[in-house]
């Protein structure tokens, strides 16, 4: 019981720390100033910010929402939602 408690709690804590680090990383990416002192991001930085957000969303779905243990239809549906949404956002951003 203690081993199970320790391993499942450690996983949640590890995911939590990872998402916090990714949040700080994405803020740093979005904190560049251009020559006129305004915040800006290059296309590559914007793509990196979106990628970090996608990883955080997948971490929440897979681990906090326990979709990793869910029926196959739910795993496919949620991954499809993330993939479809991010693909659409990136296409519209780059268009």
């Amino acid at each position: 019981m203690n081993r199970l408690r320790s391993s499942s709690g450690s996983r949640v804590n590890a995911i939590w720390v990872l998402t916090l680090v990714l949040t700080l990383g994405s803020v740093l990416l979005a904190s560049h100033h251009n020559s006129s002192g305004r915040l800006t991001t290059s296309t590559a930085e914007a793509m990196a910010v979106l990628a970090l957000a996608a990883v955080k969303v997948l971490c929440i779905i897979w681990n906090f929402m326990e979709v990793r243990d869910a029926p196959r239809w739910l795993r496919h549906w949620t991954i499809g939602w993330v993939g479809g949404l991010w693909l659409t956002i990136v296409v519209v951003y780059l268009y």
Partner: protein
Amino acid sequence: MLQDVAPSPATARAGRLLGDLNVWIFVLGDLVFFGAYFVIFMVYRHQETAVFLASQRHLSLIAGALNTMVLLTSSRFVALAVQAARRGESERARRLISYGGLFGVAFVAIKAFEWAHEIGHGFTLVRNDFFMFYFMLTGVHLFHVLLGLVILVVANRELRSPERCRSWIVESGAAYWHMVDLLWVVIFALLYLVR
């Protein structure tokens, strides 16, 4: 105790839901609704890039980042609460859910402060399309946070008597709260970070 920690081999193969199927249908419907809203936001952003970029500079990156970390921390406590409840540790689960709720209240407070700051500087719903999306998206999300807080209170009360605890209420509440968290992660990226 909510349920055994180790599922049977048959359950493991078929997979198991965190909470009730009806709540998941609601969660998936919400994801579709917000997903459509995010895409519409990006289309408007594409059409009015200069207005959106100029308006975005008036948002507080610090407040947005702080709220992201606050909700992620809240989700951590709620995830740990579900695990504690499954082991039959009702008191610990209740304490963890309460911590999760307190961080949810902190999110509301930071958001209220941020809105007051924006409105105080004349950036209201009717200022332009960017602020229309800003207040609508964050407003609908805030409603979800408030509803989530009520659900966490219900889950907390459910854990008061472990012997007649309905597991689906605690787990469904957690699934809903994590959805609120992940939606904010997308809102933060699109409204505050991507330029």
